[in-house]
């Protein structure tokens, strides 16, 4: 058994290029993606079109340009200037303050401002409007206090649990743990049986006294172990480099990682044992990885998806793992909820590994 494992590792790691592929890119990607994948706006280009000359408008503009989310890229002096900034993507949004602004304010009439947003990325547009809304709310509150206006009869006091500053890195970086673990585990397993088939070594393996179960374990364990090592490393990076909190139970997380990696290795081996050529194995790996990531809830909430697609996500191990990793790191999720995530992964792992082992012997002719 040990010999089988050693062989698998050697076959994987003896080639310099292959070794590099398993170690180099995931590390770089962790760092790059950890910073890149965020829905928080930061220094988004904004252009100002101010037709008002009062001090109130200047104060409002200062609030916008001073915010971390925005970065002023220019002033506009005429209506057509708006398109000149938005169309070529020089600015994501334009703040337009009309001629009447200060006058209306001083007359205590409701003044209005206009925000023109580039909707080509409508999600970013909505987020930007959200930020603008918050800035404006702050302005309104201050203005009301300064002018001793009637205070509103009720006020919202919003608190965000688990992530008080709504830092989306806290959401994304644990997700990257799942993403990269998925990719690396697939990398190790999805082509391994297909390669041995193409090279004829699989026959040689089948005539040795190894049982299909042993061959299966021999094929699955390198993926599982490499997946474990990489995910542990990424979790450590998440905590110590990205400063994502870790409030939950390490054991609960590791149970999740193990089940996730086993399920992923199972899918990889199933793909690999169904494929006759490595090209087919590669195609299969992509057909699994790509939907997995998009439908797992990594970037877009599963709850937003249509019913049928939501049902489809039940087949995706990453979906369960993301709940676990985020839950354990950020909010010490209760065990009952965790167990609902554990068992589907165990079922997926069991089914795919079983099918792979069955295919070892069937797929010979």
């Amino acid at each position: 058994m040990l010999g089988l494992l050693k062989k698998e590792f050697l076959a994987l790691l003896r080639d310099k290029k292959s070794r590099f592929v398993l170690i180099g890119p995931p590390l770089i990607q962790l760092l790059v993606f950890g910073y890149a994948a965020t829905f928080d706006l930061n220094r988004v280009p904004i252009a100002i079109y101010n037709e008002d000359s009062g001090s109130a408008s200047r104060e409002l503009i200062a609030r916008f340009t001073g915010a971390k989310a925005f970065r002023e890229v220019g002033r506009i002096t005429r209506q057509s200037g708006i398109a000149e900034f938005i169309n070529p993507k020089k600015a994501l949004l334009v703040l337009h303050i009309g001629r009447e602004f200060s006058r209306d304010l001083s007359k205590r009439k409701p003044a209005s401002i206009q925000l023109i947003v580039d909707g080509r990325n409508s999600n970013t547009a909505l987020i930007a409007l959200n930020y603008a809304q918050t800035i404006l709310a702050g302005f309104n509150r201050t203005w009301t206090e300064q002018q001793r206006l009637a205070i509103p009869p009720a006020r919202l006091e919003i608190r965000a649990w688990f992530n008080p500053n709504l830092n989306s890195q806290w959401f994304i970086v644990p997700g990257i743990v799942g993403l990269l673990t998925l990719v690396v585990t697939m990398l190790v397993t999805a082509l391994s049986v297909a390669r041995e088939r193409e090279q004829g070594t699989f026959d040689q393996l089948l005539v040795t006294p190894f049982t299909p179960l042993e061959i299966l374990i021999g094929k699955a364990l390198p993926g599982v172990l490499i997946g474990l090592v990489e995910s542990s490393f990424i979790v450590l990076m998440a905590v110590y480099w990205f400063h994502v909190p870790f409030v939950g139970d390490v054991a609960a997380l590791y149970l999740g990682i193990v089940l996730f990696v086993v399920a992923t290795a199972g899918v990889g081996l199933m793909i690999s044992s169904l494929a006759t050529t490595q090209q087919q194995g590669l195609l299969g790996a992509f057909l699994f990885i790509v939907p997995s990531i998009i439908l797992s809830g990594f970037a877009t909430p599963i709850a937003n998806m249509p019913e049928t697609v939501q049902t489809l996500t039940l087949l995706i191990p990453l979906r369960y793992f993301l709940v676990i990793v985020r839950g354990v790191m950020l909010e010490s999720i209760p065990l009952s909820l965790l167990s609902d995530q554990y068992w589907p992964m165990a079922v997926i792992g069991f089914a795919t590994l079983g099918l792979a082992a069955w295919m070892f012997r069937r797929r010979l002719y």
Partner: protein
Amino acid sequence: MNAEHYVSPDTSAKRLRLLGLIRKEFLQIRRDLSSIAIAFLLPIVLLIIFGYGVSLDAKHVHVGLVAENPGPETADFFSGLQRSEYFQPVYFSGQRAAQKALDQRRISAIVRLRSDFSRQLLNGHSAPIDVIVDGVDANTARLVSGYLQGVWAGWLQRRLDERAGGSAQAVLMQQRIWFNPAVRSRDYLVPGLIAVIMTLTGALLTAMVVAREWDRGTLEALLATPVSVGEVLTGKLVPYYLLGMGGMALAIGMAIFLFEVPLRGSLWVLFVTGSLFLLAALGMGLLISIIAQNQFVAGQMAIITTYLPAFILSGFIFDIDSMPVAVQTFTYLIAARYFVAILQTVFLAGDVWEVIVPNALALALMALVFLALAARRMPRRLG
């Protein structure tokens, strides 16, 4: 019989060789259907799943409502939430039960009106409305609090209108979302997805093809014929370019007719820039194939270098401007970045040359660099 008799003059021999290689590649494509699957099936399946599956618009968010002392005032406030299409209210009798539901992810936010809400409201004491949002998914949390603010503002305005009139807010914001006023996230996701999917298709099509010739030993025979490296590469490029363009046309057709994304720009711009992008993607695949020299490593490299970078760094879903500067420089290496910008612009905004020209130039440069590198690294000899 002399050998010279059989060798045609130089130019026509060159044409023969090239055509021969192209025909060979097409025959191989026809025999192993996985190339055709990559070119056509992959885009269809992925576009359908994503086109329908991916949405950033939070609707019907489950929100827990707690009124510690129910009365007409609390009911009035909650009615605003009930009417909103964004929320799906769930009533709780007490804060504890609601918090438990939040812990278990059955709800994403809690709105709590304390027992003295009605009293404070009447006294003009600015009654606090406690809102707790689940901050794990910061983006959704932010959207939810935005929606809640809207509901709250609407409620305030309603109360004012009922009494004296006037405005609850000093300054009101009017928003204009250009190019996508209905804020359909599908309209921007689908064009972006085309770029991500074509990155995969392009690289997958070619990542294996040179490596396969190494693995199967045919490269040795090929190198011993009068074929030049340029001819071998062109022979690989042309068939997969045609295949890839077919896939791209299919994807664009689906975007327009199935997902009803408006196309405000012109098709020929899509065709030209799509070609440049595809050449860059195919060039990258070829380079991978040449560097790896065997299918196993080529496959691994293709998995790791194509999808995730295109997904995360292209601006398709995460805003590039918001990334740290160091990370932004990384995105310049991702061909999909340029194509996403072009696609979103041509589809939703029209032929905005200030966007199209620089991005197209960048794509052309990338294609050139990848192909030149591939030609350089392509072995002329063994060993």
